[in-house]
């Protein structure tokens, strides 16, 4: 009897400790989430406008006018998998890596961003070209290392298509794994207007009424815009993944804390029941003894 109550007490204590830890992690994730979310959302008007600028440049240039625009037959596909470094964020990485498993291992090479992706790729014996570890406070520059690497592989012809597998941030409760093709930039029409907050007064380029003048020259502007566009796209996708990660972790930790609280409640109830039972038995024993004596 006494041993049992002591066991329960010990369990309550340990569950309480766990809940304190998950509560702390929830707080940290919430703070990081707010930061990551605002970073991800702040870049959207820029992305939308960049999209528009690029579209108007690309429409004017003939197809295949630039190596980054050139669509080739896909013999090798490069997939950049953006995962988290740490676990404890619900089903986020599981969902992401399930998508990663769908690519044909013979035709696909991978670049890992984040420790979880790397571990999974190695365990499943996929070809990994590079592994990037990005800091928690990632700058545009850090993200550029990733996109620069992918762009080099594409330009040298080692791969014919580059896409990024990331977790799209929809809202705090919903994050969806998504694959987006970044190279070649022929799939422009698809991405344009997706995040369009600036869609007013779009110049009708098809009318031929408006001819852009480029300075210094169209080629030079295109040369500058296209790589910048790719860098920014990748950066934005990594930011989205970050926002998703922290949101998912906060939600996971919140439910862990809630579960721990529920468990403590159940255990306390159990404990009190046993305690009450033992008191009742003791009382009964005393009364019986007294009656026997009396």
């Amino acid at each position, binding site marked *: 009897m006494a041993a049992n109550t002591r066991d329960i007490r010990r369990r309550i204590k340990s569950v309480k400790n766990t809940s304190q830890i998950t509560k702390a992690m929830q707080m940290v994730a919430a703070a990081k989430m707010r930061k990551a979310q605002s970073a991800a959302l*702040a*870049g959207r008007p820029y992305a939308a406008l*960049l999209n528009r*600028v690029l579209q108007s440049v690309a429409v004017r240039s003939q197809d295949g006018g630039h190596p980054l625009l050139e669509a080739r037959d896909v013999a090798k596909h490069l997939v950049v998998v953006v995962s988290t470094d740490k676990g404890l964020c619900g089903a986020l990485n599981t969902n992401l890596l399930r998508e990663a498993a769908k690519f044909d291992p013979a035709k696909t090479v991978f670049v890992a961003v984040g420790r979880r992706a790397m571990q999974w790729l190695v365990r499943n014996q996929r070809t990994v070209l590079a592994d990037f570890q990005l800091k928690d406070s990632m700058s545009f520059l850090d993200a550029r290392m990733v996109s620069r690497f992918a762009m080099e592989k594409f330009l040298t012809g080692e791969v014919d298509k580059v896409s990024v597998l990331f977790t799209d941030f929809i809202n705090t409760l919903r994050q969806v794994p998504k694959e987006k093709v970044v190279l070649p930039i022929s799939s422009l029409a698809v991405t344009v207007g997706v995040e369009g907050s600036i869609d007013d007064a779009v*110049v009708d380029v098809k009318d031929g009424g408006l001819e852009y*003048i480029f*300075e*210094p020259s169209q080629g030079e502007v295109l040369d500058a*815009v296209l790589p910048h566009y790719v860098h920014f796209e990748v950066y934005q996708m990594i930011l989205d993944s970050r926002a998703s990660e922290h949101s998912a972790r906060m939600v996971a930790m919140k439910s862990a804390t809630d579960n721990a609280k529920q468990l403590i409640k159940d255990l306390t109830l159990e404990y009190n029941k046993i305690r009450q039972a033992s008191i009742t038995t003791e009382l009964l024993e005393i009364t019986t003894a007294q009656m026997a004596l009396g």
Partner: protein
Amino acid sequence: MATLRLEIVTPEGRAYSDDVEMVVLPAVEGEMGVLPMHVPFMTQIKPGELVVRKGGDTLHLAVGDGFVEVTQTQVNVLADMAIEEKAIDEGAVEAAVQRAREALARKDLGSEESAAVEASLARSLVQLQLKRRRKHG
């Protein structure tokens, strides 16, 4: 009078959005003024001073590298920095310049990093220049 819709966006968000009468841009080929009904135009900009005229008022902004799209009714500026003259903190910028110069002097940076430091130095210098000119001029 005809106006231009000016939008300035940076990766951190929308920095400026208003109907204005004239914009002066620091284009790579030199400063250019844009009035309404300008011919459609696209160019790169370098770190420098962007001037906005609106209803007799003049607004000065320091901008970084980026692109500009001009149509007859719109000017869209994509820059990696855009900061109003009023918002420039001279002390903080000077400290940033100092740090960047020291980092470049150490020469232990990779090419990517030093390019970034140089870019941020250029941005800081532009801010300082603008602030000082406004103060004395």
